[in-house]
């Protein structure tokens, strides 16, 4: 069956996680992604631990569904090869610091002179203008800059970082993928490529849209609330008799009577203090005091049965060893196990979308730096006349 991005080639000049994850998704949609690295690669991608059989897991993970080539763009012969690949490409993605691609002679103007239909993506941490223009940023620095930590932490406690230091990288990446798809649609309709700019801080703020809206509405910094949601209640984790936590939610008023029945607190249905979400949020403290005591009286499994019967959202706090073979995860291929050429069998993220007519994937591991240089140049009919090149 045809792939959605069949025949679309990506010149992938990306580093670390932000750019690579974006092009990896394009690869999963069927694009021919050619990842171009300087000899030795960028230090960040290759050095982030843990390593698996000597390769950084970040590098392995962010580069599925690509072919890996090496070019030393500071050398004229290599740059000439790059321009020939660019001529045959549709999408150019780079996430170097503003100015770096220009210094390598791969500015928007140069790239579009070679290939006027090119969609050229420049992603950066802080953009091209302003006092921080050109500064580098990575997930943790963007977390700190963007207020992300100020709304996360124990109930009314100190704001803390999210220690899986990749979420804002990948959020920016998915925004890039989305923008590329938009630009491909535009090009299909107008015939023209264009330039796209994306900053990590803007992507990180857009992901906080609902929380920033609270701030815009009140002028007050929203406090961290532990596991609780700020604008719906009850919507948090409660400790049960067996000391397990159960996450529960009443996100709209339709779920409230069933929730009360599940807890055998039927009298709360008619309690005017809690009749609507608005009132439950306003009277959150009283409500939570009541519920905390109730949840503590029985083990989590009991509440799971009762809440599920009433169709009220609930779930446990899971860990990887419980997730990897969880029937919900395997049935939907949310996490999958693949064989890789260099790193053995490995669990990887499943595809985030399903297409009935044009399935994405399959997910296959990329390769080591430069592994596909000869193959790609040969396939594109590009003569590698660099000294020492294999013919």
């Amino acid at each position, binding site marked *: 069956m045809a792939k959605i991005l069949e025949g679309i080639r990506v010149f992938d000049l990306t580093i670390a996680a932000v750019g690579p994850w974006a092009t990896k998704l394009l690869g999963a949609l069927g694009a021919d992604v050619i990842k171009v690295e300087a000899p030795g690669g960028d230090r960040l991608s290759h050095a982030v631990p843990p*390593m698996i059989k000597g390769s950084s897991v970040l590098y392995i993970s962010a580069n599925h569904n690509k072919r890996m080539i090496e070019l030393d763009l500071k050398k004229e012969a290599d740059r000439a090869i790059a321009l020939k690949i660019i001529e045959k490409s549709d999408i150019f993605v780079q996430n170097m610091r503003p100015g770096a691609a220009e210094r390598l002679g791969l500015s928007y103007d140069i790239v579009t002179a070679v290939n006027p239909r090119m969609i050229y993506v420049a992603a950066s941490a802080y953009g091209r203008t302003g006092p921080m223009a050109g500064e*580098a940023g*990575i997930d*943790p*620095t963007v977390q700190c800059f963007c207020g992300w930590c100020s709304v*996360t932490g124990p109930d009314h406690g100190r704001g803390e970082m999210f220690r899986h230091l990749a979420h804002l990288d990948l959020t920016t990446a998915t925004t890039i993928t989305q923008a590329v798809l*938009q630009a491909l649609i535009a090009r299909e309709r107008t015939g023209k490529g264009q330039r796209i700019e994306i900053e990590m801080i803007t992507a990180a703020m857009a*992901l906080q849209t609902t929380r920033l809206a609270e701030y815009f509405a009140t002028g007050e910094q929203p406090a961290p609330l532990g596991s609780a949601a700020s604008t719906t209640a009850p919507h948090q984790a409660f400790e049960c008799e067996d000391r397990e936590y159960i996450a*529960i939610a009443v996100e709209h008023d339709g779920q409230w009577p069933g929730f009360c029945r599940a807890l055998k607190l039927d009298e709360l249905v008619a309690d005017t203090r809690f009749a609507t979400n608005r009132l439950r949020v306003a009277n959150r403290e009283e409500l939570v005091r009541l519920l905390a005591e109730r949840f503590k009286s029985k083990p989590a499994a009991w509440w799971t049965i009762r809440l599920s019967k009433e169709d009220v959202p609930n779930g446990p706090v899971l860990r990887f060893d419980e997730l990897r073979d969880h029937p*919900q995860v395997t049935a939907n291929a949310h996490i999958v196990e693949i064989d890789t050429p260099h790193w053995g069998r490995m669990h990887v993220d499943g595809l985030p979308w399903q297409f009935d007519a044009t399935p994405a994937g399959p997910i296959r591991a990329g390769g080591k730096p430069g592994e596909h240089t000869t193959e790609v140049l040969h396939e594109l009919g590009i003569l590698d006349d660099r000294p020492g090149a294999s013919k």
Partner: protein
Amino acid sequence: MSAPGSLDGFRIIDLTQGLCGPFCTMQLGDGGADVIKIEPPNGDYARRMGPPFVGDESAVFLSLNRNKKSVTLDLATDAGRDAVRKLAAKADVVVEDFGPDAASKIGLGYDQLKQINSKLIYCAISPFGEEGPLRDAPGSELVIQAMAEYTASLGRIGDPPVRVGADIASLNTGIFAAQAILAALFHRLRAGEGQRVAVSEFGSLLHMRGIMWSALSDPDDWFGFHLDHYTKPPDYGYQAKDGSFYFILRRGDSEGWDKLIMGLGMEEVLADPRFDDYGRAATSIGRYATEVKPIWEKAFANRSRGELIDLIKGMGGDAVPIMDYPALMAHPQVAALDIVTEVTHPTAGSLKMIRPVARFSDTPNSIRLPPPLLGQHTAELLDAVGILSR
């Protein structure tokens, strides 16, 4: 009038409520698509998510529904469902979040709608995915975060779980849903066929944590931030005299390093192997960052964070203050990039919101309509498909 957007002329019928679906369709609207938001007679439940409210509308709702027109229809009635079918017949995309099979039961499934619109793109959003034992289970922001183990990277072992403050299960999934729709639209432009696409919140968050699953597969050793963050204490950055900040050293040289260390009066670390390679392993994601943090903080205690940030940047490091929302909004970088924009709403007045993220040179994203009042466009849009709304 600005240049046309990339999605101008596409019509989206949005049957979703809450956060995820509306965030998806708002992005398509930003791209230029006409988004018709179908709401039940009492409105999208997100209109009641609060306080805070601005006028009668929740701040949450207002932040997720610009560039849409609102039509109220009661899908429990034949007339309501028939109106959706008439609208879908002339649309390019339908988005729903009813859960697996639920749309088909009311005659609004893909197989039913494609009979009247063969090239339709149909996007279904579910909490857990369309297969498996939890396919019909309801989800929520916290339930999905907890089950996708996001709470493992927050808080302290033994303490109550802490969630990510942002609504990531909803919003990150909204991005994937937008991608799926865009990819299907591109395919339709090239191949002429529509199709059904699907995303789930659980699947989306598990995807976003993918580096972790590989890290845990068979690592050479058990360290690195993807692994030992499970057991690390909460990270608050670095405490200076007047506030906290964060920094990472990864482009050092000996001259800058000596200047930094002498400047901070930290000469004793020059003999400490954990600070080798100009401190690369001693900060941020470095292997020894957590254990050597007190050494840095001792040197930072009598210095302002502004002074420290300048010093660190001077040697090629990255350093930023840890900011809350008021500080962020006052920051000149946010102003320089015009990240916050204002929209005038008919009853709530002037609203601040975050602009569309991607900036296109040729087909710009744009904000053309404020979030709609409930049913504001019912008459206009139903009349257009030949239904008398009254």
